[in-house]
């Protein structure tokens, strides 16, 4: 039992699970035909069948039940404000499975020359009274019952009166913002708390203009929208949802990382071994002092950024995104690729931090300008 818990604690460390997720993800949600072929060879699409769903959810439930045998895990999970996240976890995974299941079924129909299931249904018109109204009534009653029972069983939390002089450790934002708070580990507040939220909002609004694919409107499908769905799922599951989970359940005092079965020790010591890119360039590679001039000192970082945002879009337009570039045109393509590169900056920064201990690419603390 303890050995299993230790093992889970070990593999849940971001150094291990994050690279693993990155490596596996695009085989499960393949954005290209080639990856789709590998997905089919490995049989990963079977996850989106009834049997796959049953296996997936039995696994989840067993893992969760196993977790509940541990007093520490139970304590975090049953904290009143954390309960919705457990619900969210199951709901999100269920609906990911449910939508993908319908998508694969439709893809098979389309492959064999039929129209999607929705098109079959849509031939028939029905009256909203009573056919829709009664569904709404049932949904409303169900929701009311759920809320009432939830409210009776679980009291809303009320802690000590507000005291500006005593700060709890850790201090956490409401759970739906914990993805942003978790980003603070990898980026300064002006990026994680201001720039990224803005980019997320504008980027989401821009989706319809950046997705030139006319297919797949009004029915579930994966094959016809591989790229769009793979990118969206990556943000939704890996960057939003899993960061919330990590921020809620696996971040303890001093925002240190703790495995799910690890005691939240306030005195846990984390070696601060993170260094900046400029330190690596000057002190390790060139073996000399950091130069006094800020621009000279951060030259390496600026060159990296210049390549990342200046040259990489051009390289991508000529290679991977060639057809996309032709369909979107210069302006929309630039928007798309800048949003994409910015957001991919997050997993890149996570890998740099967890695997290579790099803190900042550009570090100018003098002007609060760290990237």
């Amino acid at each position: 039992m303890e050995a299993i818990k230790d093992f889970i604690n070990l593999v849940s460390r971001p150094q291990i699970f994050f690279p693993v997720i990155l490596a596996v993800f695009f085989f499960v949600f393949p954005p290209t035909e080639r990856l789709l072929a590998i997905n089919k060879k490995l049989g990963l699409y079977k996850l989106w069948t009834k049997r796959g769903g049953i296996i997936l959810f039995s696994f989840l439930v067993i893992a969760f039940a196993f977790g509940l045998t541990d007093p520490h895990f139970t304590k975090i999970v049953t904290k009143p404000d954390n309960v919705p996240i457990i619900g969210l976890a199951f709901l999100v995974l269920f609906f990911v499975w449910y939508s993908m299941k319908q998508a694969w079924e439709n893809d098979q129909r389309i492959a064999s020359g039929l129209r999607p299931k929705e098109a079959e249904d849509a031939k028939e018109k029905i009256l909203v009274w009573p056919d829709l109204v009664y569904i709404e009534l049932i949904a409303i009653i169900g929701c009311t019952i759920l809320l009432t029972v939830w409210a009776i069983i679980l009291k809303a939390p009320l802690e000590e009166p507000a005291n500006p002089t005593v700060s709890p450790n850790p201090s956490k934002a409401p759970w739906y913002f914990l993805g942003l708070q978790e980003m603070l580990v990898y980026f300064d507040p002006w990026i994680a708390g201001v720039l990224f939220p803005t980019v997320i909002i504008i980027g989401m609004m821009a989706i319809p203009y950046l997705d030139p694919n006319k297919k797949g409107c009004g029915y579930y499908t994966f094959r016809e929208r591989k790229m769009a769905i793979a990118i969206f799922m990556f943000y939704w599951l890996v960057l939003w949802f899993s960061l919330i989970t990590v921020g809620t359940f696996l971040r303890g005092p001093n925002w240190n990382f703790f495995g799910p079965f690890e005691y939240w020790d306030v005195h846990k010591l984390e070696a601060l071994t993170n260094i900046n890119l400029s330190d690596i360039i000057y002190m390790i590679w060139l073996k000399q002092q950091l130069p006094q001039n800020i621009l000279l000192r951060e030259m390496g970082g600026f060159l990296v950024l210049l390549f990342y945002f200046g040259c990489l879009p051009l390289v991508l337009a000529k290679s991977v995104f060639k057809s996309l570039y032709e369909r979107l045109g210069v302006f929309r393509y630039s928007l798309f690729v800048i949003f994409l590169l910015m957001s991919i900056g997050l997993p890149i920064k996570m890998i740099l931090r967890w695997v290579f201990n790099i803190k900042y690419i550009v570090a100018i603390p003098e002007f609060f300008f760290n990237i």
Partner: protein
Amino acid sequence: MDEQNGFLRKISQTQLAKAIFRTGIPRNRRQRMMIMLNSVFLHLHPVRLPKHAVKVKYTWCMGGLSFFIFLVLTVTGILLMFYYRPTVEYAYGDIMDLKEQVPLGIMREIHRWGAHLMVITVWLHMFRVFMTGSYKPPREFNWAVGVVLLVLTMLMSFTGYLLPWDQLAIWAITVGSNMAGATPFAGTAGPGSSLLALGDVNFITASSDARFAMIGGRFIGEAALLRFYVLHCIGLPFIIMIFMIVHFWRVRKDGGISGPI
């Protein structure tokens, strides 16, 4: 039940019932259409829909439930307002009273869990809309309105989080509002703010930056509580209502619920 002489039928023939429900009991096709057209509430819906659009399998009911939970939160919120005074002196005590003195009181619980649930249903609604490709033309604009509604939902929840005035509340809001202090140029701890100066005089200080504008002070106190209270009870609901009206209207105007062409 005897269709001709039933109790329900008798009532539906009275002048009162006729005055309120114009259509009467919807029994035939015409009445079923008329009832949708005559009621201002039911008229949010179209009269007829393609069959796929009413299936839970397709819609997951998430948009409708988000709206329903919004209504639940409005009602419970109004009830809570009777008992709550947004001042540092009284806020915590009022919540305490609500907890200790009201027998069988679950309004705060329903309000709090409903708020969490609404964030979840709004996210899942967005996820469904994405997975069915419903943001594609001609529904691009409504997708943008939906994104605004999603952000507003989270802001509603965020502003409400402060009101109990306990440790959980002020430190969560402290963490959240500190980020505003890092706004480029407009926050004291943000890049570029020190450039906005005239000689030695900085324009952006802890008493004049974005964070100050948000919480009305240098730290979370009386002003922040009042600000969040007003935003939570009046300001944001007002804005969210406007966007909701546009959202529902545009669902109908942009060709109704999405479906295969």
